[in-house]
C-alpha cells in the first residue's frame, strides 16, 4: 500500500486461483429490515446483501481472507461481493464445514447467478463491489 516495491505481490499478475462452488441462498432479517428502512438502492442494503459466506478451506484455496472482494461467476451472470469466513458453529454444517458451498443472502446479488442451487466459480478480485445499477443495468 505504501508504494514500497518490496510489498508488491507478484502473484497478483498470475492467474488467480478459482474454486467451483454451489450457491445457496438464505434469508437475513437484518437485510430485510435494511431494505424496508433504507431502500434496495441503499448502501445499508448493499452491505448486507453483496456477501458470500465461504468455508475457511475454500477461502484458503482461492488465496482470500475474510473481508476480501471475490468475483462470483455462473453461466447466467457475474457479481463482485465481500467474502466472509464462516463463523464456527453458526454457519458451518454439523462438524464438517461446508466446503464447496457458498451462502449468499437472497437478493439481486445472488439472484443474478441463476436459480437455486446455482453452480459458480469464485476467485479473489480487486474490483469494487457490484452496485444494484450495474446488476440490473439501469
Amino acid at each position, binding site marked *: 500500500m505504501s508504494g514500497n516495491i518490496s510489498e508488491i505481490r507478484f502473484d497478483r499478475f498470475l492467474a488467480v486461483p478459482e474454486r467451483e462452488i454451489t450457491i*445457496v441462498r438464505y434469508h437475513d432479517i437484518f437485510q*430485510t429490515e435494511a431494505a424496508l428502512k433504507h*431502500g434496495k438502492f441503499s448502501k445499508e442494503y448493499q452491505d448486507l446483501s453483496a456477501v458470500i459466506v465461504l468455508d475457511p478451506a475454500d477461502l484458503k484455496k482461492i488465496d482470500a481472507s475474510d473481508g476480501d472482494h471475490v468475483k462470483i461467476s455462473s453461466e447466467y451472470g457475474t457479481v463482485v461481493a465481500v467474502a466472509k469466513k464462516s463463523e464456527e458453529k453458526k454457519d458451518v454444517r454439523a462438524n464438517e464445514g461446508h466446503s464447496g458451498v457458498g451462502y449468499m443472502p437472497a437478493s439481486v446479488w445472488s439472484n443474478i447467478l441463476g436459480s437455486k442451487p446455482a453452480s459458480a466459480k469464485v476467485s479473489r478480485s480487486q474490483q469494487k463491489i457490484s452496485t444494484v445499477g450495474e446488476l440490473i443495468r439501469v
Partner: protein
Amino acid sequence: MTCTGCALLCEDIDVRDGEVRHACRIGTAHILNRQQIDPMVDQEVVDIDDAIRHAAALLADAERPMFLGFGNSITETQAAGVRLAEKIGAGIDPCSVHTSLIDDIVHSRVRTCTLPEVRDQADVILFWGADPMNTHPRLMSGYAYYPRGKNRQHGWEEDRTAIAIDVRRSHTASICKSVHEIIPGRDVEFIDALMLALRNKVPKTVYDSKRVLKLAGTLKKAEFGVIFAGSGLVGSVPRDAIIRLMDELNEFSDFRILPLFSQYNLRSIATAAACEHSGGCTPTPASLHDADCLLCVGFDLASSLPQACDIDASIIVIDPSETLTAGCADVVIPCAAGGVDLAGTAVRMDGTKIDLPSITKTGQTGAGARISDLSIMNRLLEAV
C-alpha cells in the same frame, strides 16, 4: 391492528406516537417504511393521473399482457386485478415457489391445519427449508414452538420436538433438537431415504442412514406433526414428492403441512389464480418472453430476476415502496400499503381470513394520502 410485514398477519400491533409495539424487527420497519417513489412515465416524474392514464394505454394496446405478483395486495385489490386480467386477456402469475403447495392444500391433496391448531396440538414440528427466525420472526413464540397450548401445557421444554431440515445450519436450526443437513440439489434423495426408513427399511443413501432411521422413528411417534414448508423445500422438490411424503407420514401418524411464504396475502391470490407449473411459479426470461406488457403489483421482478430490465416488454410497476424494477419501468405508480394506510382483508398463511384496519388512519383521502392499489386497479378497469 394487523401487521402485513409477512404472512403471519400478527393482530396485536399497537402504534402510538410513531412507536410500534409488539411487532418484530421486520414488522416495525414495514409499518414505518416510507421508501416511496414518485409516479413516473419513461423514468420522468409525472402527475399520478398521467401515470395511470399511460398505464391504461399500454395495457389496452398490449396483445399479450401478463400480471405478476399481487401477493402483497389486499384481497379486494386482487379481485379487481383478476377482473382487469379477464377483461384484457392477461395471465396472472403470483411469482412464488409456494403456489403449487397452496394449490395442493386448497384441493385437499395434502392435509393442513391452522396456526392455533399448531399451538394447541403440535408435538413434532419440522422446519423444512425454512428459517422463520429470519422470515417470520414471531412464528416460534406465537404458535410453533414456545407457547403452551390446549394439549401442550408444558410448551417447548417437554411437549414439543422441533427438527430442522435444510441446506444450511440456519438460526432456526440452532434452537432445534435435531438438524438434518441436505446436500444442495439432493433433496429428493433425502425424501426417498426417509420414506424407506418410515417403512423400517435401511435406506442406501448419501445421508447417514442411522440418523434418517432415527428421524423416521420420531416422526412416526408424533401425535400431531407439522411441516413448515419454506422456499428451500417447495423450490427444490417436485410437488408430487411432497404429496407422496405426506401420504406416507399419514400412514403412521397425523401429519399436516403449512406453507411458509412471506408475501402477506399470497395464499389468497394463489387460490384465485391457480398456477399450473409444477414446482411453483417463479419467473424466468423464457416464461416472460411471450409477454409484451408486464404489470408488476407489489412484486419486485428485477430483484428476483435481474435480467428483467432487458426483457423486450413494457413494464408497469404498482407498489407502495421503491423497487429495483421501478428503476427500469415504463410506468411507475406508487400506492398505499395494505394494513398500513389502506384497510381491507387478507388471508393468513393458514387460510384464515383476517381484517386489516388502516394503521395510519389516512385511508384514501386527505392531504398527503396515498392512492390505493384498489382505486388504481378500478381506474384501469374503467379506462381499458
